[in-house]
């Protein structure tokens, strides 16, 4: 059974809740990053919520996804716990990766989430591999790679799609075309009119959908999933969307004007889905306010959980390298235990 599906009223409300959760999570992530409480980089998904949620609504809970550097939305859409996510962003031991991954590397393999990824285009080969495991063991799953418009120019993405299509693997490639690869417009990076046109090179279906319409995204992914499970191989879906924030927080965004951003915001995916549910009599303004308040509470709780969680102990830096640990690394952990203080990698 899917986590939620747009075929039922409850499922549609759940999809709306998840879109709101993503927006609230990333709004807070941006704020705490600006405050300096969240270290490193954060890449926010605000504006693109319909893509992640529409996609994951069409997947089964044990399907796999690979994500991107802009991965918070995919995690929430896939059903990851916002407390453990926020704790990870804060670098806390209670986070999904015990504080070793941070924003760009959140993963929960048991939940089918094979990792956000700091390397553009690195996810599709991994998804092809997950699809290979599924196919090899004859399991009833699919593997879906989220990738950005920029990643379509990467060589390893071509290799991954070619292999998945040649081997007829149960894979889906979901291109989030948010119009800019970092600071450079999509038309300056690709020669095709639509990125989904590249699917022709692999003789697989390539479709472009409105990524601001959660229903359109879900329908395309449902179709792709069905096709993959029927043994007909992968599909490439291009979802046209827009990020409201910069490539990263702190990006000056001198490559686009405010008018363009405003035009996309007029087509806001959450607003339009909300209106649709109200029109259908499935939601009232009061119920929406209530939902929004619940989501704000959830994220406030997540922030509180993250803030109150412990930082990792220094010796935890020496854990998790290998399934079978090596003395080269272990010596530093044991030295910390006996001597205390920072060893900083001096070899004796």
């Amino acid at each position, binding site marked *: 059974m899917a986590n939620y599906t747009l075929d039922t009223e409850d499922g549609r409300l759940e999809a709306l809740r998840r879109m709101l959760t993503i927006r609230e999570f990333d709004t807070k992530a941006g704020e705490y990053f600006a405050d300096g409480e969240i270290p490193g980089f954060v890449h926010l998904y605000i504006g693109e919520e319909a893509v992640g949620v529409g996609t994951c609504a069409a997947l089964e809970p044990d399907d*796999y996804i*690979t994500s991107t550097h802009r991965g918070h939305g995919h995690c929430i859409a896939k059903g990851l716990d916002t407390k453990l996510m926020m704790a990870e962003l804060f670098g806390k031991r209670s*986070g*999904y*990766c*015990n*504080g*070793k*991954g941070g924003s760009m*590397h959140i*993963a*929960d*393999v*048991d939940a089918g989430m*094979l*990792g956000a*990824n*700091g*390397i553009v285009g*690195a996810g*599709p*080969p*991994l*998804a*092809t*591999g*997950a699809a*290979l*495991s*599924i196919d*090899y*063991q004859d399991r009833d799953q699919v*593997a879906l790679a989220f990738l950005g418009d920029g990643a379509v120019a990467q*060589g*390893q993405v*071509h*290799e*991954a799609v*070619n*292999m998945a299509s*040649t081997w007829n693997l149960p894979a889906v490639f979901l291109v989030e075309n948010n119009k800019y690869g970092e600071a450079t417009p999509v038309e300056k990076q690709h020669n095709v009119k639509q990125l989904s046109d590249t699917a022709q090179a692999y003789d697989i279906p390539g479709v472009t959908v409105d990524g601001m319409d959660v229903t359109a995204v879900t329908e395309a992914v449902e179709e792709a999933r069905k096709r993959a499970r029927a043994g007909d191989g992968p599909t490439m879906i291009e979802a046209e969307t827009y990020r409201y924030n910069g490539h990263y927080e702190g990006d000056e965004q001198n490559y686009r004007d405010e008018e363009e951003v405003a035009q996309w915001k007029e087509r806001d995916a959450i607003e339009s889905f909300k209106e649709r549910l109200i029109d259908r009599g499935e939601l009232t303004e009061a119920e929406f306010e209530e939902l929004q308040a619940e989501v704000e509470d959830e994220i406030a709780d997540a922030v509180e959980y993250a803030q109150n969680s412990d930082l990792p102990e220094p010796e935890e830096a020496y*854990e*998790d*390298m*290998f*399934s*079978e640990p*090596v*003395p*080269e*690394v272990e010596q530093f952990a044991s030295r910390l235990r006996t001597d205390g203080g920072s060893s900083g990698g001096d*070899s*004796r």
Partner: protein
Amino acid sequence: MTAQAELEREETETMTVREAIREALREELARDEDVYIMGEDVGAFGGVLEVTGDLYEEFGEERVRDTPIAEAGYVGAATGAAATGTRPVIELMFSDFIGVSMEQIMNQMAKMRYMFGGKTEIPVTVRATEGGGMGAASQHSGTVHAWISHFPGLKAVAPGTAAAAKGLTKAAIRSNDPVFVFENKMIYEQQGDVPTDEDYIVPIGEAAVEREGEDVTVVATQRLVGESLDVADRLAGDVSVEVIDPRSLYPLDTETIAESLRKTGRMVVADETPLSYGTHAEIITRAQEEAFFSLDAPIQRVGTPDTHMPFSTPLEQEVLPDGEGVENAIRRIT
């Protein structure tokens, strides 16, 4: 225990390094259904290096799978597959092609387990052939195991004998960590006694004393193990040479090397990687950290003198480290 003593306890059969690797693959394919081989022309063709041979006939195309010529793609796919419940064994053909797939190796395969807080295993094996000596020129003769041994999150082994080739390949496949098996292409036809026990493995991280000696320790890898044993034979009665094959480059069995150095006080490190910033430096550093006050002479290095492997025979022979180089190094310090 010396390598010879180890083997004397086992039922053995004489076979080549190539056959020993194929036997390891065959046994592991038969033992575990989650194990499969992927690579270019490994199937019906039998592998460019003729290692996979007839495995395709025995196990079929799903388990001995030909890939497109797309090293980044299939190394990445193997990493994704390993994270999701299967155990791929990649044949990367020439180790120079690691360059083509390096992004998936260094940023995905090596880092996923650590970045994810230990919540996934990556049981992937990568076999690749290294070394000069057959006029294959610079892009098919490299010895690059220092890169992989240097990079955290990867394990690297490099057999110098047929027994080690079998035992290390099996250990790599059974490991839940990414393990690279570096096979020197000039020793595929080298014969040796190989244990027939299907559970014979060489634990990753254990060196072998291939020959005991008193005057000087030669730590040699791959092809240079056999050549150093020949040198030891030649010098017998004059200089007593102990030969150690580390077998595993990372993790490295520092103690076996240090123990030998404490006994002999002199050491030569012979390995085909380029000399600068490499395998030799690491072994020597560790040896002096553990046994500095046992040293009677400067430790010597035998390796490739920081050039690529040239094509023409006299050029290739000039830069290729060999037994003569090992002997000269021994003479300098004994």
